[in-house]
């Protein structure tokens, strides 16, 4: 690993952390972890953005062109965030400590942390040794980055028809020509820093993503009132999920990115709801927008998250009204037999009596698919994808039902996740996408998108009762901005 490669990592992560630092200033609990987690993930994405915007003409030296812009953005953004923080003081939430945790839970948390570190070292060595392995990684996500880096400059990817129609133009095509390019640009950044197309080094961000995912969730859970021990145990729960582990070891798919950003978005939104911290609302909105830039399915999660954010701001009366309006719309569409609904970023979704036409997915025939329903049940409860996560969801929700009902933030979060799961269930059980559930191809990857958020919901339901929302300290304190991390 060359010095320039390591320096490119430093620049990307430092920029991300600098931006995240000033957006996480309202609480001390978990701040370091939040800054590191969000910083690592958004640092890599900011590097991708800087590369896409400033290095198209010389991708071989992409990181050298993009690094100054990235650094300037980080400094400018931090200054703006600092200024906003000074003028928009957020209330400071109650902070938890470990007084309640007994000896054995603490020991368990430490052992869990050690096992995660060991797992991380295995994952890192796996990624650093092997050339790109999984199918979509080399068929879809690394195609553009490899082309752009080795070509030395950007070339547009277009549909096969357009490619054939312009034989003299420097256009490229492929089966995944219309996939979002964010991760490709990120790989260009790291490949250019490595000085060659070295696949393990272009895939290393997936290990960093896993670290960022765990740190970011730990920090936000702490900020939301989980004590250290519980937060560490839930980090272990999240980090030990087998399918997430696979997506790091076999780096190259976009799904873990979507899962991470959706998880971050939900957590920031929860913090905004519980602590009225404007910076967290900004982060939630940023996550929502980022989702749409990662993968087509991310557009759906983006809209769901935005709808939830808006829904949460409504009064109880308007929530019921909007629910009735949505239900009435669905009933009318079902009775009439067809409807056209315009969704931002997706376009017109058309439904007929037996067909739904969704621009990012295609035309889907509506029918009940029993094998797909069985496939989903097997995926969640029988296969080794999730350990016992989905076995635990129902009992924990029942056990903590009162806590859920008492917290507006958690109730709306649960509704959001229920709606997301309902969408997936509808997609896999009532449309042609059933084959993806029957063959276990996409069903688990799409469920993975909402899994970190589900773990967050479970973790927050198991908070100490005294730290459940409502226990917000309203005096921000004059030295809040100078709190040590």
């Amino acid at each position: 690993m060359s010095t320039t490669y390591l320096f490119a990592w430093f620049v990307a992560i430092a920029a991300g952390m600098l931006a995240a630092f000033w957006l996480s200033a309202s609480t001390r609990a978990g701040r370091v972890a939040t800054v590191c987690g969000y910083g690592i993930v958004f640092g890599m994405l900011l590097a991708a953005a800087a590369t896409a915007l400033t290095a198209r003409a010389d991708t071989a030296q992409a990181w050298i062109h993009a690094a100054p812009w990235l650094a300037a953005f980080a400094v400018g953004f931090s200054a703006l965030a600092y200024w906003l923080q000074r003028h928009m003081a957020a209330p400071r939430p109650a902070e938890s400590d470990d007084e309640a945790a007994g000896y054995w839970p603490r020991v368990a948390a430490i052992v869990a942390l050690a096992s995660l570190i060991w797992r991380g070292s295995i994952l890192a060595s796996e990624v650093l040794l092997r050339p790109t392995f999984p199918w979509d990684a080399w068929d879809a996500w690394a195609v553009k980055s490899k082309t752009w880096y080795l070509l030395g400059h950007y070339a547009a990817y277009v549909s096969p028809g357009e490619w054939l129609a312009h034989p003299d133009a420097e256009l490229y095509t492929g089966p995944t020509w219309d996939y979002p390019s964010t991760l490709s640009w990120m790989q260009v950044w790291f490949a250019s820093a490595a000085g060659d197309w070295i696949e393990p080094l272009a895939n290393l961000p997936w290990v960093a993503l896993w670290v960022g995912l765990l740190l970011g969730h730990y920090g936000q859970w702490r900020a939301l009132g989980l004590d250290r021990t519980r937060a560490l145990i839930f980090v272990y729960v999240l980090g030990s999920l087998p399918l997430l582990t696979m997506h790091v070891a076999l780096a190259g798919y976009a799904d873990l990115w979507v899962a991470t950003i959706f998880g971050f978005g939900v957590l920031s939104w929860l913090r905004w709801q519980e602590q009225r911290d404007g910076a967290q609302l900004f982060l939630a909105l940023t996550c929502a927008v980022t989702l749409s830039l990662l993968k087509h399915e991310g557009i759906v999660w983006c809209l769901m998250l935005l709808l939830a954010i808006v829904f949460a701001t409504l009064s109880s009366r308007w929530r019921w009204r909007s629910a009735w309006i949505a239900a009435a719309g669905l009933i009318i569409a079902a009775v009439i037999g067809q409807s056209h609904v315009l969704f931002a970023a997706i376009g017109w979704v058309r439904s007929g009596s037996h067909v739904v036409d969704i621009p990012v997915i295609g035309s889907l025939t509506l029918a009940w698919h029993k094998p797909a329903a069985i496939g989903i049940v097997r995926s969640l409860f029988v296969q080794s994808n999730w350990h016992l996560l989905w076995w635990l969801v129902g009992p924990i929700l029942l056990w903590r039902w009162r806590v859920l009902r008492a917290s507006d933030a958690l109730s709306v979060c649960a509704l959001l996740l229920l709606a997301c799961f309902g969408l997936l269930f509808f997609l896999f059980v009532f449309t042609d996408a059933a084959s993806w559930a029957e063959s276990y191809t996409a069903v688990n990857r799409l469920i993975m998108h909402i899994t970190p958020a589900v773990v967050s919901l479970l973790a927050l339901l198991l908070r100490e009762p005294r730290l459940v929302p409502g226990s917000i300290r309203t005096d921000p304190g004059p030295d809040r901005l100078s709190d040590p991390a």
Partner: protein
Amino acid sequence: MRSLNLAVALIAVWLLVLGTAAGVPWSAPLFPRETLGLNGQDFRPLVGAGVEDGTALGIGAIATDGYALQTTSLDRLRAAELSVLRYHFEDFPRTLELVLVFRRADAPDDVQTVALPWPGDGNVTFDLRTATEAWRGEIIELGFAEYATSQLVPPSIAFRPFRLVSARLQSAAWSTAPALLRSGWFGYRPWSQAAVNVVAQGAEGTTSMPLTLALGAVLTLAVLVWLRREWRGQLVRLALLLGAVAWVALDLRGLDDLWAKRKLTTAIYSDKSWQERARLQPDEDVAGFAQLSRQQASSVSSGQRVLVASDSVYKMLRLIYFLLPLNTAPLETAIAQAAPSSFPADTLIVICASKVWQYDGATSTLLSGARVVPVTPLFVGGDLGIYRLRRGGP
């Protein structure tokens, strides 16, 4: 007395749960009624080279087409009565995958195959009845085949000598349950392309470890609450404890699996430079085709377009990936959108391992059904054909 009752009840619960997971019929005896033992020397190396090594068979080489096969003839063995296979290899390389091969008397020309867990250095026990419907009737030939793990291990470095020590077929019995569970839950399975979609640690199905542990935990909780009334107030704590223990057990299995997979990766790629690792592709043949194709192509800056076809989608897409940054596209996609006459004049066409696309030397065309593409051959050899598009009809 209460403690004894509790212990008996818990043992009964876990025997029930684990026994069901092992797939042993409840009517089975404690020890197998029938057993057929085979030493390694009873097998003949049909493909590849092997020599008798004591009672074992030492396999010293694989055939040029990349696999080895050892078989033995059987005297119309009744599959239903001997459904449990136990096999023992020594020094079996992690880079190879093992397949059971057999023929039935009712279809002697059909070769049946079942993928087996990696044997390592010890005994592995495997239930053939639940693994394949083909294990029925009368078996007349049985054998083992070894391949470089597909899509994962470069064939050129996959083989190392190993010994087939013994194989044993036996009837179902409760004494085999622990070994069946061990190989079912902890048997090493290499990375596969499906691993990003579904996690397969050991063999899934009736022996699902998450399902078994979840049911075991629920039944254990029920027994504890039933027999220990004073613990009913601690229901949540007990449930959490059982859930945590089951989770950790599953995670230890997952870490063990991850560690085993890492050993293979290390065996192939450690202590090599980035360039050497890049050359060690699991599909070395396709990587070689890409190198040959690149030699026939103009420089990347010329913007020359390359159309690729193969009967295998995997090979076609891999070839396209290896050829980057050449301006490539699938030939089938291009022809579906436009007539070959509209393609740029210097278009290169690469045909890899295809029976669908055939070159007709008489007319200098590539043919696929009714589709005709006039071409000039640049290189034709083995599974690879490289052609330049020719203007004008055949």
